[in-house]
């Protein structure tokens, strides 16, 4: 039964991937998409370009980002033994938004002279600023994770970093021009479409390293379900495990936020959906399931945000919340034990 659900998830994610290559402002037949993917030539040159240049990097980004946020969310929920924990509890996205705010709002003039020679470099400036901000918090969290006795200290740290960052961002917004503010708000909406093939060379390896490390933490995470004392009695070096879990989750959350903006909902909801689907807290099942469902859902959310058939497009974060929250509510109503770790 478990295997059946897992196979269904694989099929779901695969289908979502193909659909997101086929559907858009221009619809491309699935067999043509498949032909392009297998290295062949589509019957129209424009289709070839659309799939390879625009839709493929976007679909890969969505797949990886969704998987990354779900894995990080799962890790954080178990580490903090808190069903409301998400990939951003450690303040990673706050750091990234601060970086972006500083570039977009504060140093717009400075960054224009440094990065803004071409549109491409400007774009790199945004990603670079977000990466730097996320990396700064990442380094802070890891330095502290090694020392603290209690995991609650980490949680408080993340919370305070978030408040500090949002205070600075508010000040910047207050003194900014409307168009600068709207550029910043635009970034906070999130998007999978900003990652070029060039950037993929940094994005994909970062996420694959993070995901690989996350997979290696499933066994100690299972022991941590019983609490730190029991985990210790079973030979788990809690401090070391905490550091690696924090490191991989922060890397995943940081990289996604840097390249796609702060994308909500997926990281907190997908682990819960998987627990409900498989009726287990076993990370050996939950981790691969979260990767698949997270990647698939991210692709679907991205599809919906483009509103196929219309000329308009919705911000990604609007879709993740507007579609995701009712789904979770529905499951909460149906399952009493939903929300447990």
């Amino acid at each position: 039964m478990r295997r059946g659900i897992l196979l269904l998830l694989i099929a779901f994610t695969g289908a979502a991937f193909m659909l997101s290559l086929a559907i858009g402002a221009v619809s491309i037949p699935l067999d043509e998409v498949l032909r392009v993917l297998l290295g062949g030539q589509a019957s129209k040159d424009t289709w070839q370009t659309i799939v390879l240049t625009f839709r493929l990097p976007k679909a890969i980004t969505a797949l990886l980002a969704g998987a990354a946020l779900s894995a990080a969310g799962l890790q954080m929920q178990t580490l903090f033994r808190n069903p409301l924990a998400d990939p951003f509890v450690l303040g990673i996205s706050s750091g990234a938004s601060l970086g972006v705010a500083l570039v977009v709002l504060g140093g717009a003039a400075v960054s224009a002279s440094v990065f803004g020679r071409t549109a491409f470099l400007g774009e790199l400036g945004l990603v670079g600023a977000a990466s730097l901000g996320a990396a700064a918090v990442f380094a802070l969290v890891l330095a502290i994770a090694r020392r603290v006795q209690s995991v609650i200290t980490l949680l408080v740290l993340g919370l305070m970093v978030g408040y500090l960052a949002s205070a600075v961002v508010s000040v910047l917004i207050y003194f900014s021009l409307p168009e600068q503010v709207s550029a910043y708000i635009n970034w906070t909406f999130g998007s999978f479409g900003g990652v070029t093939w060039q950037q993929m060379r940094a994005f994909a390896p970062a996420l694959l390293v993070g995901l690989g490390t996350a997979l290696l933490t499933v066994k100690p995470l299972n022991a941590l379900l019983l609490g730190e004392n029991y985990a210790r009695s079973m030979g788990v070096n809690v401090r070391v495990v905490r550091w690696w879990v924090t490191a991989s989750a922060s890397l995943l959350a940081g990289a996604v936020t840097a390249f796609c903006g702060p994308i909500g909902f997926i990281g907190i909801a997908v682990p819960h959906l998987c627990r409900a689907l498989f009726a287990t807290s076993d990370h050996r099942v939950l981790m691969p399931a979260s990767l698949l469902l997270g990647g698939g859902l991210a692709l679907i959310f991205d599809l919906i945000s483009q509103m196929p058939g219309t000329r308009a497009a919705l911000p990604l974060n609007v879709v993740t919340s507007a579609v995701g929250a009712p789904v979770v509510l529905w499951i909460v109503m149906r399952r009493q034990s939903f929300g447990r770790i």
Partner: protein
Amino acid sequence: MVNRWEQAGYALGQMRRASEHSEPAERSPDATAAIYARDLTTGYRQGTRVRVVHRGLGLALPRGKLTALLGPNGAGKSTLMRTLSGLQPALAGAVWVDGVPLRTLSPQAIARKLAVVLTDRVDVGYMTAYALAALGRHPYTRWDGWLTPEDEQIVQEAMHAAGCAGLAARMVAELSDGERQRVMIARALAQQTPIIFLDEPTAFLDLPRRIEMMHLLADLAHRTGRALLLSTHDLELALRFADGLWLMGGDGTFVTGTPMELLQRGELLRVFSGEGREVRRYLQDLHQRWQAKDLSADWLKAETQGSHDKHPVSQIGG
């Protein structure tokens, strides 16, 4: 891979620790004891501040026996158990676990020698009793925690021994306190350690479940040859079911012996004298009944030993 990192981190710690302790690793003076400690000082060290709880303890935990650790609150029962299980460093002295010096053992190695049942509430959403018991195999499984058929069999046997085989498919969240305690004991058994520590295993149970639990533990110690050490406030049940008592006074005293010996010598009365008039009166009564031969040796021994054969307590409340 995490395991290897853990070991690497541990090796570093060992090198640091080895430089602190210059004494060589000796063989245990008493290899028959599951745990042997000499001149053990327990307590807490925070920075330069040191708080000693007990000084110069000498003790031996026998194999195949149920030993009860008794004492008023704050006497240092948990501190001693944490120290003996390597969760907290000893301030001084030496501990041998299963004949090996405790300080030479990695956390992983300790996990193969000593399992614990704690009072910590286990609150997992979607976990069957079987999956919980199977976590006891943690020190033996590979990087992803996959269970071999052999592991599965050990878990099943452990659940059977703890009397919870019928609960295997139930969700942990739906179990009663007594049922959950049995599953936690099965988890400790599945860890296949020669020693099991239990921190107040009867704390949340009603009387019939408490009697069942003590009976189960004595039985497990005798049948499997494991050394069981439990801390408890259940004085009377400990007197009846434990093979040996470790008495810890609030004043830092520590005496060991069989329940008979300690009752006879009036040690119980002394240790709990600070616990109020009613307790004193109860123990005085027990002591006097013993002296008046009203409380014969049979009161303590015959019932527990008889019960191992006939299992009368398991009939109480089913």
